[in-house]
C-alpha cells in the first residue's frame, strides 16, 4: 500500500493525515511536497497524524526529521500525532522520540500550538 496524504485546518493548525507507508521513493516525496506546500502558504503549525501509517523505513524516518527541521528553521513547529506501535518503537530505538513532540490526542495537540 502506497502512502496517502490529506490535510485540513483546525484552529490555525494544519493537520496532515497520513496513511500507508512512508518509505524510500513515493511515500517520502509525498510527505516532503506536502510540508513544503504548507510552508509556502505560510502555514507553520503542522501536526502530522501518523495513526494510519503502518510502515516506515530509514528513508521515511529521515523524511520526518527533514520535515521537522525545515519547519523549525522557518520559525514554525511540527508535531507528531497518534503513532502506531511500529513507528513508536522505531522512534524509540533511534532516540528520536525525545526530539519530536509526540501527542496522542488531537484536540490537546492543536491547543498545544497556541
Amino acid at each position, binding site marked *: 500500500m502506497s502512502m496517502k496524504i490529506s490535510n485540513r485546518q483546525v484552529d490555525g493548525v494544519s493537520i496532515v493525515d497520513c496513511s500507508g507507508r512512508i518509505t*524510500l521513493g513515493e511515500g517520502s516525496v509525498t510527505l516532503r511536497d506536502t510540508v513544503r506546500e504548507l510552508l509556502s502558504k505560510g502555514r507553520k503549525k503542522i501536526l502530522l497524524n501518523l495513526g494510519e501509517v503502518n510502515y516506515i523505513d530509514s528513508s521515511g524516518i529521515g523524511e520526518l526529521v527533514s520535515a521537522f527541521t525545515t519547519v523549525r528553521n522557518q520559525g514554525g513547529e511540527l508535531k507528531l500525532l497518534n503513532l502506531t506501535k511500529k513507528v513508536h518503537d522505531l522512534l524509540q530505538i533511534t532516540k528520536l522520540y525525545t526530539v519530536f513532540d509526540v501527542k496522542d490526542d488531537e484536540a490537546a495537540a492543536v491547543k498545544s500550538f497556541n
Partner: protein
Amino acid sequence: MTKQRVSYTLDSTLETVDNAEQTATRIAAEAGFEEDEVMRISMAVREAAINAVLHGNAYDPGKKVKLDFESTPRDLVITISDQGKGLDMSKIPDPLAPENLLKTSGRGIFLIRSFMDEVHIHPSHSGTEIKLIKHVHGPAVGGKEASP
C-alpha cells in the same frame, strides 16, 4: 526440516527494494518466525537492499543486486551483495550521537543491527556483501520445552 536455499539476481531499482522486503517477509513467515520478528527481518532486508541499490550500485543498470536466503532449523541467513565500490565503514556515523540525531540519513546499518541477531559486513573493491542472521528460537532449537 532440511536446509532450504533460494537466490535472486535483481536490478538496481526501487522495485528491487520492495521485492527484497516482500520476499523476506514470505520466507521469514515460512520459516516459522512470529509476526513481530518477520517485520524486523523484512525491515532489515529492506534497509540492506536500499544500501545495495542506492549507495552500492548507485542505480547503475549495469550492476546487479544478489539476494540469497538460506533457511535451516537453527537460522535464517540472508546475504545481500552489490557490485559497488565497497562500503567504507569508517564513514558511517553513529546515528545516536547527539550531533547526528537530526541527520536525515545514516540509520540503515543501525536499524539492521538492531533487528538481526548477527550482522557481518564484508566490503571489498568489487562490492559489499552483508550477511544477516536471525536465530530460530523456541522448541525447534535445542529441543527443550519450557517448564510448565
